[in-house]
């Protein structure tokens, strides 16, 4: 017997599409100066956020975004059945420590920068499956914590290559629920881990593009939909080079997404902000989704969006040992149809 909710090979359609009940975003100062700066709920004055360490600053952002999302949903933490969150730090300490403070039953996730979409996909399944009424999903990243873990100390004088991306300092959280009015999640497409042999850890957009493209193509094949069925197709953090490659790869499969496709890593920074290819990190897609895309959907500017959270599944050790960088992309369809009116 095959699953009744499964479409094709990797896509799931929900009988009772989960609804976004509330969402909140917190970003660092650089993101606050970007094109979406006035969309976020809170912009930090400095990247230490009043804390002694950057790790604590990241945790505080994540906690604030979670509390904000729960509050905006008109709920209290005790109303949330399950929290699912993750981040980029070793042993996902930002998410674990935040869950300790919030006291909500917790499932830690690691999907690198795809974590927010991984959480939304899993949370939607739990809700549509009747296992939960409200699920809180969240993800965070911080420029300084990511740099020191993956690359160099921040004051080290290095020239960043043009393909490099800038880790977003930010945290985004969303509460999805079994009912209510709001944008809803109608389909998800769970991605495969794809690796076409890119080894340059300064070019993660190129490493992740094949995974993003694979998920987008698979989504169209599974659902029978075409690019024109979406007002917007948006990937998580491929930035300029990864975006161009994804567009080409999807075109090779016969789908033209050039008119309605962009990437959160392109939306969040302006080219004058010297980030090179654009933004990256768990926070990138999390804050662009919670701070910008959901608001645009509620405002009626996008009726249906295919978001693909992208992640580069590397570690500092795997890079040093000469391994290539596997990528993943999880697709989530957000539809405005449950908005009423």
């Amino acid at each position, binding site marked *: 017997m095959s699953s009744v909710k499964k479409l094709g090979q990797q896509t799931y359609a929900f009988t009772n599409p989960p609804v976004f009940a509330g969402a909140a975003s917190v970003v660092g100062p650089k993101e606050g100066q970007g094109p979406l700066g006035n969309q976020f709920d809170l912009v930090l004055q400095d990247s230490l956020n009043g804390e*002694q*360490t*950057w*790790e604590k600053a990241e945790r505080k952002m994540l906690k604030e975004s979670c509390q904000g999302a729960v509050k905006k949903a008109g709920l209290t933490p005790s109303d949330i059945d399950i929290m699912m969150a993750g981040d980029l730090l070793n042993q996902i300490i930002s998410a674990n420590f935040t869950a300790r403070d919030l006291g909500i039953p917790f499932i830690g996730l690691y999907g690198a920068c795809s974590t927010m979409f991984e959480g939304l996909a899993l949370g939607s399944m739990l809700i549509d499956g009747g296992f939960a009424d409200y699920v809180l999903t969240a993800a965070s990243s911080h420029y300084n914590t990511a740099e*020191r873990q993956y690359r*160099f*100390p*921040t*004051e*080290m*004088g*290095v*020239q*960043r*290559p*043009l*393909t490099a991306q800038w880790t977003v300092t930010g945290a985004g959280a969303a509460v999805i629920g079994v009912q209510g009015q709001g944008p809803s999640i109608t389909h998800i497409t769970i991605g495969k881990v794809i690796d*076409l*042999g*890119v080894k340059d850890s300064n*070019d993660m957009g*190129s490493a992740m593009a*094949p995974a993003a493209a694979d998920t987008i193509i698979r989504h169209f094949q599974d659902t029978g939909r075409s690019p024109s069925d979406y007002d917007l197709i948006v990937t998580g953090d491929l930035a300029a*080079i990864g975006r*161009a*490659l994804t567009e*080409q*790869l999807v075109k090779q499969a016969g789908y033209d997404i050039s008119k309605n496709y962009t990437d959160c890593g392109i939306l969040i920074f302006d080219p004058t902000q010297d980030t090179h290819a654009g933004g990256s990190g768990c926070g990138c897609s999390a804050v662009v989704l919670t701070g910008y895309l959901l608001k645009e959907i509620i405002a009626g500017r996008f009726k249906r969006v295919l978001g693909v959270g992208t992640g580069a599944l590397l570690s500092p050790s795997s890079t040093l040992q000469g391994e290539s960088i596997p990528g993943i992309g999880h697709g989530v369809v957000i539809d405005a149809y449950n908005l009423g009116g």
Partner: protein
Amino acid sequence: MTDEKLIPSDRELQEMQYQMMVTSAKPKPPLLRNVLGAFVIGGAICVFGQALLNFFKSSGLAKPEAGAATSAVLVFLAALLTGLGVYDSIAKYAGAGTIVPITGFANSIVAPAMEFRQEGMVFGVGQRIFTLAGPVLAFGFVTAWLIGLITYLFK
């Protein structure tokens, strides 16, 4: 019978095709601007070092002592600029121009020392201070040993 090693597998072909796509999608680094930045800023550091050396010699120091004093001043200034958060901003334009002189060595020691202060003095600063300079020291020792051996054998 076919020689399997000569014919790439589908996966290898796919990887090769994708590698070509990536190469053409990547922007070219602004080579001329980078080279000029490295030459001008790296050159300026060296000119400044020479000026210091001349000053110390004219002040009456012997040549080895004047050299040591020059290095000390350059290392101090690079450490200070790293601490003030200025050095990496200069390095963005200078590239190797700020890495190769002794100032780059100072930067590579002070930067991790600052960064890992959060993990405490012993396992933070103490353990991590040579994270970046360590390889330079290790291979510097090996090179010095080899040169010493060559000098001993052929002199």
